[in-house]
């Protein structure tokens, strides 16, 4: 019996378990998936919780609902990977051997990495919305808040779902407008990047929208610490920004297990061949999703597109062919802009987000880099697609490789 071991049963690991179980003979291949938690979170939904649009029950389901029959599931913490010996030590001492390993342990937030962030104001006036607990604490806070300075700050790059903090300020603008207190809420968006977004065309579109909604942007701000007494965030070059409520994207790093295994970079992300999705160090290890260091967004859409390439290359390796499938870094992100509208961006390693239509050239129905109602419905419908199609590894009517068809180039 040959063995494939998948570490992590989030979006990436679950998709792979489904794809591989369908393709590989049960008599020949044992597939095992390991995760310490039993709950699957629909993470794109976290963003809506602070504004009371979603609640906890809208974003959780048991992980067990999404594993196919014939996959061995182990709920356990992972001790470390011993890559030279092709084995994984679980926290309880159990050892799992593998022929091929897929690392899909994702990225986590580490508020304790920023001095003063995880202090006495945490979940009182400082919140994250990358955990269900943080999002719910913020929902409670916003219900009783009468206004003041709301600061949305990104501490470090890279971080999961790069558009989420922009969506957060757009939704906050709509939320406080509808509540009738927008004039009492001062919204500031603070980022270590040189603009609202890195890629120029999207950055321009989003900057205009931020301006239109009276949201201030402070670029090139790299947070050193949070001053809990003065209620300010302080940059390394000693600029201070005061807040009454701080929403924050804490430092993102890979799982500590990666560090224990000696397989990570300085942020515990696994050095990965950005085209084949193999580990740089070990060719029988593949990395899917946020756990890798590939230079594209840490997002579910990327994990989805990459899963098709990883699947192809793993099958190539299993059947003795060269790993010829190449990932192009394709990402596709809906951006909620508030008041029932949304924008959409589609890009890869080489091509920045451009205006146009998606997925059908000239038809859409979605408009790229346009602020429309239909884009918002796309995001709303996506939750159903996520639970019913995406996690189960079924085909979506979208190509894994990005296409220029339907896009307008800008000079």
């Amino acid at each position, binding site marked *: 019996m040959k063995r494939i071991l998948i570490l992590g049963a989030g979006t990436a690991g679950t998709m792979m378990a489904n794809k591989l179980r369908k393709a590989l003979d049960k008599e020949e291949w044992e597939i095992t998936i390991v995760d310490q938690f039993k709950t699957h979170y629909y993470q794109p939904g976290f963003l809506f919780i602070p504004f009371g649009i979603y609640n906890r029950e809208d974003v959780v389901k048991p992980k067990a609902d999404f594993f196919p029959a014939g996959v061995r599931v182990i709920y356990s913490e992972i001790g470390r990977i011993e890559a030279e010996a092709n084995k994984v030590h679980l926290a309880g001492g159990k050892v799992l051997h593998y022929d091929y390993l897929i690392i899909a342990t994702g990225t986590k937030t580490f508020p304790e990495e920023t001095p003063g962030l995880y202090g006495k104001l945490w979940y009182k006036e400082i919140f994250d919305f990358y955990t269900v607990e943080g999002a719910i604490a913020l929902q409670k806070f916003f219900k009783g808040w009468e206004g003041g300075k709301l600061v949305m700050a990104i501490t470090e*790059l890279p971080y999961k779902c790069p558009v989420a903090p922009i969506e957060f300020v757009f939704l906050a603008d709509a939320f406080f407008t509808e509540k009738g207190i927008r004039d009492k809420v001062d919204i500031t968006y603070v980022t270590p990047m040189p603009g609202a977004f890195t890629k120029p065309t999207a950055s321009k579109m989003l900057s205009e929208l931020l301006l239109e909604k009276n949201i201030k942007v402070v670029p090139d701000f790299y947070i050193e610490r949070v001053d809990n007494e003065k209620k300010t965030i302080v940059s*390394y070059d000693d600029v201070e920004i005061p807040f009454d409520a701080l929403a924050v994207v804490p430092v993102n790093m890979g799982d500590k297990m990666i560090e224990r295994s000696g397989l990570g*970079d300085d*942020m515990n992300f696994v050095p990965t061949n950005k085209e084949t999705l193999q580990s740089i160090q070990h060719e029988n290890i593949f990395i899917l999703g946020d756990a890798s*260091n590939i230079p*594209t*967004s840490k997002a579910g859409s990327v994990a989805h597109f990459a899963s098709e390439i990883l699947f192809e290359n793993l099958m190539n390796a299993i059947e003795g062919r060269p790993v010829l499938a190449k990932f192009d870094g394709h990402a596709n992100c809906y951006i909620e802009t508030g008041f029932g509208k949304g924008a959409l961006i589609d890009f890869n390693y080489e091509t920045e987000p451009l205006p146009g239509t998606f997925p059908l050239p000239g038809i859409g129905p979605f408009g790229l880099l346009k602020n429309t109602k239909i884009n918002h419905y796309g995001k709303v419908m996506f939750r159903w697609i996520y639970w019913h199609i995406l996690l189960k590894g079924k085909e979506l009517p979208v190509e894994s490789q990005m296409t220029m068809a339907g896009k307008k180039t800008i000079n």
Partner: protein
Amino acid sequence: MAEKVIAGKSIEVTDEGYLVNMEDWSREIAAELASEAGIELTGKHLEVLEYLREKQSAGETLTIRKVGKSGIVDIKGLYKLFPGGPLKISSKLAGIPKPTSCV
């Protein structure tokens, strides 16, 4: 792309003044680019620049955090050496491409 005369040599640079070929770099070029940016180059500056060039050649992604862990200088010190945008400015002076944040 453009040609620019730096330290007496004609060098190919990007529109934003970053060297196109990192092999064109020399300490004299770094010193001249530094004075354009209002920085007087010290040994500490050069240590950072050499570190950046070494990591760039090794194909590693450069971040402020990484330089802060290099043992040469902490992040606060890096801001003091290259005020404003430490990674952008130090990359330019090191003759390596403008850092891109992958988001």
